[in-house]
Every structure is written in C-alpha cells, then in structure tokens.
C-alpha cells in the first residue's frame, strides 16, 4: 500500500480477527467516515491478529511518523501488552479518541441457584476455589480482569479465584448453557438472545448505570447492590507516534465528526455500546489511569 503525504487515504488497523469486538467498532467507525466522506479519501481496514493485539500495536508503533494510519485498541490490548511482556504502552502512540465503553455482566445459567449477585458473592466468598468462573478472554483480558477486580472488591484474594479461560463468547456460552461453570463474566452484547429466552440470567451489570436494552433494564448495577465497583471495557483509536500536532488534530476532528452522526448513534444502540467519547488530554489521562489499574491487578495475581 502506498499512501503518499498528499493522499487522503487512511489505513485502519484492527488488532484481532474479523468479527471480534475491535473489528465491529473499528469497521463501524470506518464505514460511517467513508459513507459521510469525512476524510475525502478511502479507508483500508487491515486485521492484524496475534498476541491479543500486541502484534498489531507493535507494528503500528513501528510506523512512527506515518500520518495515514490509525489503530483501534481497547482494554484488552492494555492487558496483553503486559501479559505478553511487551515494554510499550498505549501512551507511546498518539492517542486520538476513546469511542465507546461497554459494561460487562455477571452471567449464570437459567437454572442456577443464584438469583442475585448477593447470593453468588456469599457462596463465592465462603469458598472461592469451589466455584468455577469463566470468561471469554485469556489472562489480562477484560473478562479476566473483571472477576479479579470484583473478587478484590468483595474481599476475596484474586489468587484464590478459579478462572477458566474460554476462546471468546461462543465457547463461553456453551459452557454456561451446559452448566459447566458456575458464572460467566463478559460483555453482554453476544448474549442478548439467550438472556431474553431465559436460558441465561444476568445477576449484575458493571456500569455506572443500568443498561438500556429491554432485556437488561431490570438488572441492577454492582453499585446498587452495595459492591463498590464500576468496570468498563472500552475501545478507542490511536495513531502512530511522532505525527505532527496538526495532523493529530485533523484526525481527531474526523473522529469527532463521525461521532456526531446519526449513523453512529444508531450503531451504539445496535451493539449496546455506551457513548463515551473522549479526546486529547482527557483520553491520555484515561489511558494512564487504565494502565495503572491493569498492571496493579496483574501484579496482585503474580502474572507480571
């Protein structure tokens, strides 16, 4: 791909496979920018898989000064950089904007004895090792960090948590439907249908407020249940390091314009994402804070 300096074309790197969360967010944003001809050029989307996003991020950082590249990242990439022993941090790139955040939920099978998050936490606290909890990410990913932080908050040593890692939402769903594990921790977008059908039950959501989707409006937040934890998965967009300030502002303006469209509002609703748009310094601070939190959790677990 050749993108000369005067070209208006942009490469969007997606750090995981087609169909995953980063892919949905990144492609949706690109589609809206293309449809609205926001940049005056074309987009190329490239899925660079591997090592939980570390490969894609490393490659992007290697293109320092490239003003025609962006990458979609998120909480999972923060953790992966640590768990894959990469020295780089997201702030080494040029942060552009956070696009969305997405609360997670605590899921149990429809016939589970746990009706509320209190039921679950009570049994869990008594014998953390006896309950198998699962998530769709490997250690360091959002579905792993969430139960660990929840355990920490309710006074369970995260080291005692029996976490079973599944390869994404599909296998996690079958484990829950087959009652192979006691609880699952995950974003809820993939589970809407099973929740509506009563095959799965959500004990709590991890956002600051309840979720707007009809199937989830009755589900309390953790804070409502007197558990002082807000856990948000999030996704945003970065550019390579060492690009000019003018270009950075221009790219941020593109994303701002994309964010203000009706199409984006519709996408947020379709995927159940929370509008959580931050740019510039706010986003940089947010990234630093996330970095500290993730590394703290992983350190407690002895995974660093």
């Amino acid at each position: 791909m050749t993108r000369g300096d005067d070209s208006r074309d942009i490469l969007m790197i997606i750090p995981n496979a087609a169909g995953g969360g980063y892919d949905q967010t990144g492609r949706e944003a690109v589609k809206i920018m293309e449809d609205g001809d926001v940049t005056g050029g074309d987009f190329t989307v490239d899925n660079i898989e591997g090592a939980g996003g570390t490969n894609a991020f490393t490659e992007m950082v290697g293109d320092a000064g490239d003003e025609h590249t962006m990458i979609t990242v998120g909480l999972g990439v923060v953790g992966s950089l640590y768990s894959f022993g990469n020295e780089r941090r997201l702030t080494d790139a040029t942060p552009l904007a956070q696009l969305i955040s997405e609360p997670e939920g605590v899921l149990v099978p429809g016939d589970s004895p746990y009706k509320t998050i209190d039921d679950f936490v009570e049994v869990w606290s008594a014998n953390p090792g006896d309950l198998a909890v699962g998530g769709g990410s490997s250690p360091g990913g959002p579905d792993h960090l969430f139960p660990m932080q929840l355990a920490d908050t309710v006074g369970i040593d995260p080291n005692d948590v029996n976490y079973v890692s599944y390869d994404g939402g599909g296998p996690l769903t079958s484990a829950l439907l087959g009652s192979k594990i006691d609880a699952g921790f995950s974003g809820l977008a993939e589970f809407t249908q099973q929740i509506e059908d009563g095959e799965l039950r959500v004990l709590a959501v991890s956002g600051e407020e309840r979720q707007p989707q009809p199937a989830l409006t009755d589900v309390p937040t953790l804070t409502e249940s007197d558990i002082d934890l807000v856990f948000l998965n999030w996704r945003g967009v970065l550019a390579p390091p060492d690009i000019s300030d003018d270009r950075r502002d221009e790219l941020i303006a593109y994303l701002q314009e994309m964010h203000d469209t009706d199409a984006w509002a519709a996408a947020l609703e379709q995927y159940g994402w929370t509008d959580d748009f931050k740019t510039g310094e706010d986003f940089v601070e947010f990234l630093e804070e996330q970095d500290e939190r993730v590394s703290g959790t992983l350190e407690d677990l002895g995974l660093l």
Partner: protein
Amino acid sequence: MDTLNLLFDGLGSAFTPENLMYAAIGVLIGTFVGVLPGIGPAMALALLLPITYGLEVTQSLIMFAGIYYGGMYGGSTTSILLNTPGESASVMTAIEGNKMAKKGRAAQALATAAIGSFVAGTIGTLLVAFFAPTIAKQAVKIGAPSFFAIMLLSLVLVSAVLGSSRLRGFIGLFVGLTIGLVGLDLSTGQARLTGGITQLVDGVDIVVVAVGLFAIGESLWIAAHLRRNPVEVVPVGRPFMGREDWARSWKPWLRGTAIGFPFGALPAGGAETPTFLSYIAEKKLAKNGDEFGHGAIEGVAGPEAANNASAAGMFVPLLALGIPVTATASILLAAMTTYGIVPGPTLMTDQPDLVWTLLASLLIGNTLLLVINLPLAPLWAKLLQIPRPQLYAGILFFASLGAYAVDQNPFDIALLLVFGAVGFAVRRFGIPILPLILGVIIGPLMEVKMREALDISNGDISGLFNEGLAIGIYVIIVLAVVVPIVIDRVRGDAPLAADAQDGTNDKEEVSR
C-alpha cells in the same frame, strides 16, 4: 409432515432462475477464493460478505450459501492437486488425495471429494432442518472431559498410522506434539517454546505447518533428486470416476457424514478431529489397507465427507443456541444478524420463513457446487501435466501465498521455510508425516480440553471423569488396548510379531 412442508416452501421461494443465478455466482467466487491456499472458508466469507449486502434477503442468503460451500470445497482442490491444504480441515484430504493425483487419478480424487461433500452437506443440512433444537439441547451437556476422552481415543488409534517403524512413527508424533506446544500457556499466560519471538506466542498455524511439511518439503525433496532420478511423468488418467471408484467411495461418504455431523453439532467440536477419525476408520476398514499412503480413494472420500458434515452440523449450535463454534460460524452469525435472523432456541418458531429459506439456500448452493465443479475436475487435473520445474515453482508460489494469507504476516513465510526444511528432513530420515501432522493438530485441542476440565474442578483429577460419556470412552480405550493383546495371547502369537506383520505393508511410503 409439517417440517417437510416448511422446507418445500423454503425451496419454492428460493427456486427461481434469478436466485439460481445468484447461487451460481456465489459458488463460483466462493470456489475461486477458496482455492487460494491459506484462505479458508472463514476468510473467504469475510472477504466476500459485502457483495451480498444490497440484495434482497432471499437472494443474499442464497448467494451467501453458495460462497460458503464454494469456499469450503475450494480447499480440497489445492490439497489434492498441489498438496497445499488451505485450512486445517483439508489436511487429511491432502494425504491420500495428492498421492492419487500423482498416479494420474486427480480427477477421481476431486470427484469423490465433490460428491462426498455434496452427500455429506445434504444429509447434514437435512438433519439440521429436522433435529436442530433437539440435538442442541443434548449437545451442550457434553463438556471438556468427554472431548478430552475422545481425543485420547484418537491418539490411541494413531498407532494405526504409525507406519512400518513404531520408533520413527512415535518420533513423528512427538515432534508434532512439540510443535503444537509452541505458544502461550492458556492458564498462566506464560510463553512456551517461543524463543522470545513475539510472533510465536499465538502458536503456529496448522496451515503453515502442513503446507511447509507437505508442499515445501516435497518441493525441496524433488529438487534434490530431480537431476539424479528420471522424471516420473504424471500419467494421464481417465476423466471420471469408474465403477470401482463409486463402489469404494459410497460407504466412506456415509461413514464420514456419520462421524463428522455430531462433531459439528457439538459446541467446540470442530472439523479436524472427525476428519482424521474418518481417515483412521477408513484405513482400518479398507480391504486393501496397504493402499493407504499410496492414494487410496477411501482416504479422500471419508475425510472430505466428514469435513462437510461437520460444517453442516455447525448450524445446530449456531441456529438453535446462537453459539458460533468456529471462526466461520462467527462470521455466519454476523451475516445472519444483518439479514434479520436472530439465532436462539425460539428461532425455528419465531422466524420460520427466513430459517427455511436459509436451509433451502444451503441445499441449493450445495447442489450447484456439485453441478459446477464435477465437470471442472478433469480440467483441474490437467494442471498436473505442467512440466515439473514450472509446476513446483507454481506450488512454491501458492504455498508462500497461502502461508502469508493466513495472517498477512511475513514472519509466517519464514516459518513456512523452516517447516519446509523439517519436511525435507523427515523425508530424508524416513519419519512418517502423518503422525507428525496429527500431533500438531490434536495436541493443542487436547490440551485446551484437558486444561478446561481441570480448571473447572480446580485442579482435581476427578474433573476428567465426571461425565458418563467420558467414562464410556475410557472403557473403549482400555478395550482397544487390551483386547488385541489378549487375542494374541490366546492365539499364541507374540504381540510383537503381529505388529511387524501389520507394519510391513505400510513400508515407508507414508512419508514420501
């Protein structure tokens, strides 16, 4: 019968000349993209999905089904002709298929693959149509312990394909298992056997290993011997399957379907295990088992049918539970959502017209695939008449393209060359390739299931035995190991003699 009427309604709404044209286009581009090695059905679908947007629902579903089956089938073409499997589920096809092609029987191999895929796909789709909700309910109960037991059973059965020398066979198997260990430890996130190379933390893609061992290894071997040995010209075979080919194919097709479908229907079943279970079953059952390793048509018919039956079975958890079990299924799920199909237990009752149109489209796509590809088989087979140097140049090109296409990562090409060198070495030392590639495929799958089972029980060994099915399979394993020994004792033969006899037929040709 109610279900039957619904299916006919679906077929009726799908069966118009215009729709058939979309199906044909879908099959053609699906096959074309699927033929490129490294581009399996998942990537073919992801690349081609946008084409179906903008059409009305029925038409896009039909075209989509065509792309799906075309992409599935395309992989077997390169496996057979060029020894470069495009995805892990076609690896077994390459083993006998390419041997057949070298003996001038490429057209028969392609035909038995196409018809086998058709038979399996059709039976599989019909089973989905009639039984999806029932099967799905039972399938989620089968968990990691049972999967682990099944894989252990297949490892025990691997001894059937070890070749003439058990020692060399086991060397191959363990080299394969070691390659399968490369990558991140699932529970702790520790990198294993990666030598500090980041690109290796996700493990080694089976396609890269298989293409390296098969295609590159063979090209190097041929290149090293081309000057010394006379060039064996690939004989020009007959263009179509003869009576004997049919007689030898139909049972493997049905057996392959029977083995493949349940695996597809199980969440996390996958297509790899059934393809090689089918291969092993065919080898055991074949009257002239010694032809295996030299191009036995049963070894193509069975695994190809198993592969496609598993692909059809995948619709069971997808439609009835909304669970995508493979990469292909996740893309299918995304596509179905854009077409307004919301999978789940109530799907069949909530949106019968869409579901039946989808199932009817799958049947039509499957049929068109056969209609279009069967006449093409003899044409494809002519490809092998290209002079040796040019042919192998082409194979090297496609192999590299395939390895690159898996992840668009130049590192994989370097890796491909490394496995090419390994492929050359195992040929040089007479180590059979089959157990090696089985180790690469089954090792990681087995580990995932074992870790999951043990994780759930928090490390307690009982986690491996807490399902009835698992215990049943362990009993079979014990019987499979003990019974032959007992029989030998009773007969008064020393077991070793039996082994040697068993092995002489295989000779080392498995590795060539």
